[in-house]
């Protein structure tokens, strides 16, 4: 019972990280590093709450995904078209998102750091399984976003492996020159990769504000955007791996909540766990991981 409760908790905690990680996969497979996912998540959290406050959760997530898309567009224009250093752009996007969220929050909600409570989605239950006591925590009170997020895992895998879009996207991140000589529009593919990552990051943020906490709180993303990137790296840039890595992080967080209740270790150290874990795992994994070959390199384009 406790195990399934923990597992359920872990899955809940992992969803925002998972969504970001999946989005990051699209971007990085197309060869663009997106450090700005944290900011896109933040802005998604805000706009999600905003939309949900006025129009309900469904419009909320639409707003959130659109907000993420807009910020991703900025990143794409700056990095793909202007070929600026992708990390600098990402950092700037994070600062921009922080500023814009606070700015709009003051204007609209009259408070910089929180929004009023917002309505979330109606919970789902999985019909037959919810009769089994042991499984109960896992299959009841599930947010539809959790279902969407989990479905996105095999969906992403499918897109990457079996669609024309997926094959071309990957080729652009591995060997853009080869893709270019075969007639693939490298810039277009990179744009797609980045935009999709923004949409998913925005969605991740909206999950936090609408479903998880029930309101927007400044700083609620708490670095999950970066942890999502780490999950992608640990998952070796593929969806299933990212899923497992996200569960790992979710588990760590769920566990830390339990430990906090116990009160033995100061809660500040518990809060550090995801970040320390990220460092440790990255240090161990980097030498074994294989990013897309042309990741992070702006593409110059061939001679006319």
């Amino acid at each position, binding site marked *: 019972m406790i195990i399934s409760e923990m597992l359920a908790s872990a899955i809940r905690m992992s969803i925002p990280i998972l969504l970001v990680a999946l989005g990051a996969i699209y971007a990085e497979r197309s060869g663009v590093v997106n450090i700005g996912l944290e900011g896109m998540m933040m802005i998604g959290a805000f706009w999600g709450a905003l939309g949900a406050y006025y129009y309900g959760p469904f419009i909320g997530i639409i707003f959130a995904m659109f907000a993420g898309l807009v910020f991703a567009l900025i990143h794409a224009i700056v990095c793909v078209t202007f070929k600026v250093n992708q990390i600098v752009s990402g950092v700037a996007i994070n600062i921009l998102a922080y500023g814009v969220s606070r700015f709009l929050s003051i204007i609209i909600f009259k408070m910089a750091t929180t929004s009023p409570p917002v309505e979330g989605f109606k919970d789902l239950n999985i019909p037959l399984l919810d009769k089994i006591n042991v499984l109960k925590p896992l299959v009841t009170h599930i947010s539809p976003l959790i279902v969407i997020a989990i479905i996105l895992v095999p969906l992403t895998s499918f897109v990457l492996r079996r669609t024309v879009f997926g094959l071309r996207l990957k080729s652009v991140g591995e060997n853009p020159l080869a893709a270019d000589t075969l007639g693939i529009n490298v810039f277009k593919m990179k744009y797609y990769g980045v935009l999709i990552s923004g949409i998913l990051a925005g969605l991740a943020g909206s999950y936090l504000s609408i479903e998880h906490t029930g309101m927007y709180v400044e700083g609620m993303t708490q670095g999950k955007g970066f942890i999502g990137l780490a999950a992608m790296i640990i998952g070796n840039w593929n969806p299933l791996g990212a899923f497992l890595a996200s569960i790992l992080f979710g588990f760590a967080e769920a566990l830390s909540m339990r430990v906090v209740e116990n009160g033995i270790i100061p809660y*500040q150290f518990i809060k550090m766990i995801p970040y320390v874990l990220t460092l440790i795992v990255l240090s161990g994994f980097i030498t074994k991981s294989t990013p897309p070959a042309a990741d992070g390199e702006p593409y110059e384009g061939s001679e006319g």
Partner: protein
Amino acid sequence: MKKDLKIRLLEVFSPIFAFIIAVLLSSLIILAINKNPIEVFYTMFKFSFRRIDSIAIILYNATPLIFSGLAVSIGFRVGLFNIGVEGQYLIGAFCAALVGFAIKGLPSFIHLPLVILSAILGGMLWAIIPIYLKVKKGVHEVISTIMLNYISLSLIHYFIADLFLDRNQKVVLGLGSTLIRMPKIMPSALMPKMHGFLSLFGINLPNHVYLNWFFPIAIILSCVIYYVIWYTPFGYELRAVGFNPIASKVAGINPNSLYIKGFLLSGAVAGLVGLSDLLGYFGYMDLDFPKGYGFTGIAVALMGKNNPFGIILAAILFGFLNRGAEGIQTFLGVPMDTVVILQALVILSVVVVSEVMIRYIRYLDKKGAKI
């Protein structure tokens, strides 16, 4: 020669040009909330330059940004991105606060330098981890420093609110509860304000201005860093590695060695960022200790083109903006965060303009093919 002059001019003016673009974009956002951008910037201006005390406040605001910009720029020079200045300065400030309150009975001329040294060491300590991970394990310094930034927040929180919480605070009757802060720093470790010195020149600053000697220290440090970068073999190697690690290797320079030294130097300077506020204003470290200097430092370094004197100017600019931001919130009801947005837009437009410029120069080169 004409072409080279053209290039030089472009290099100096492009940050200004980029700044103007950022201002224009911000104006659009201001318009979107039905406020008049011209009024906004005018108010900023007026608010900042009305009296001499405003100028002093701007310089006070600029001081941490100079240190931060310098720290970030050192990283950029050697080809690395030190986003960890944010965490490095908090750890540095903490170390300073610790040595500041814990050691009693030292004369000022020993205690203050000791405290400053602690801050430097604290910053370096927080920088060793990411550069070690990069050189030995290949972990990108951006992700590791970002993680360490978050870790430092929690760690500092623990130190301030738990381990080193000042439980002996004297509560002034009727003035509310105790603050969550570390014990007050010994007076021997505090940095005096510049008021006494300036009054010699007939400049009398009111008490609510905290311009202190860290400002001149920042200026001096800028000169020192300028000297190191351009006039020492170390600075030479730093720049060479930052521009072309391969040629450096062929020339007998060890890139990894420079990466480590450069990053540690960056961390050392980062440690100083919080000291002006800590030792010149607060006198103790609490949970509300200013955050965000690390990120503004990135904007300052980029705008200042990694040149210490450009950084001073950019820092003053942002100091001015931060001061003006208070004004527009108070008088016009425009959120202070407009300045944060402006900052981010400055970063973006500076790098975009820079890239466009590089391509334009390349185009000029191709047109006039050299023999």
